[in-house]
């Protein structure tokens, strides 16, 4: 029961502070799931991001369902998924009702603009946390091949190659490099 409450609170927080979309939410999810509660290692966290890229749906919901199941079975996945949706549901309904009046309010724009550099910093911190994790367990970068895959994927992404394709190709590269 305690773990369900903890899951609910963690994902409520992730839903409530999940500004800036998928990648910005990663550092928040990492902070709750890896750092605070120790539900996953840094490497397992990275695996979920990979799975999330290959399956439909936003990373916030995917990670909620996955981690909820890992921590407390089907009940856990339902609790975490509902929790992550609740803030967006309530806040968007309020905004839809009142935003038309607030839209040109300079303070509202101030809030949005003030959070923008923080959101960019959060995306960068998610990358730093995976490149230089605090514990050695499940590292994302293990040798020169890792950096080669990183550089090629980065280049591919800048050239607008489909991210799902990039993930799949990297997986095949992994099988060829480490599996044979």
């Amino acid at each position, binding site marked *: 029961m305690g773990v369900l409450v903890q899951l609910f609170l963690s994902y409520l927080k992730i839903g409530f502070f999940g500004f800036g979309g998928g990648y910005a939410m990663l*550092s928040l999810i990492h902070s*709750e799931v890896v750092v605070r509660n120790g539900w996953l290692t840094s490497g397992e966290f990275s695996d979920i991001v990979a799975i999330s890229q290959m399956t439909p749906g936003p990373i916030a919901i995917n990670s909620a369902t996955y981690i909820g199941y890992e921590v407390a079975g089907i009940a856990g996945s339902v609790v975490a*998924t509902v929790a992550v949706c609740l803030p967006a549901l309530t806040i968007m309904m309020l905004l839809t009702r009142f935003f038309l009046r607030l839209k040109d309010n300079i303070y509202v724009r101030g809030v949005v603009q003030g959070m923008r*550099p923080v959101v960019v910093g959060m995306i960068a911190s998610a990358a730093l946390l995976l490149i230089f994790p605090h514990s050695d367990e499940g590292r994302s970068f293990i040798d020169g091949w890792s950096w080669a895959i990183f550089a090629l994927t980065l280049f591919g992404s800048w050239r607008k190659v489909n991210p799902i394709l990039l993930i799949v190709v990297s997986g095949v590269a*992994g099988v060829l490099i480490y599996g044979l």
Partner: protein
Amino acid sequence: MRLLFDIFWSFLKIGAFTFGGGYAMIPLIQHEVITLRRWLGEGEFVELLTLAQAAPGPISLNTAVFVGYKMRRYSGALAAVMGVVIPSFVIILIVAMFFADIRNNVWVDAAFRGMRPAVVALIVAPIVGLARGMNAWLMAVAVAVALVVWYFAISPVWFLLVGAVGGVLWAAYQCKKC
């Protein structure tokens, strides 16, 4: 009832086919909500995107709430959210149930060793584009947030709050001049 089901069904489709998340799904939403169903006009759609980005949470979820609420208030919002969440919930639940069994397979492990650095690259890629529009001060804030959140493992929530308050103060200061 018919409309509720249509809302649910439309967002089920959006939920099932939005790979990669975020902006990749905007054309699909546009097609479903404007072209096919005529639930929104083009102008309302722009309004919706502004809102969906200003509010916390995934864009697909925020879009679902906006459209559902506009059409049928609370029951509409709920139908749309369930539609958008159910595909990813079911697929991830199935993955989670079987992933533990195959995770230690040599081939699967090798594949994930290859995918981990690729994931990091996909996270790094958009940073350059996002940073381009920022001046030196904003850039310094972004770099400081990145380093502190990473090095001290502090929750980024605090920085969002500070950013929001800073933005309001800056707006007030600007307005005093205007």
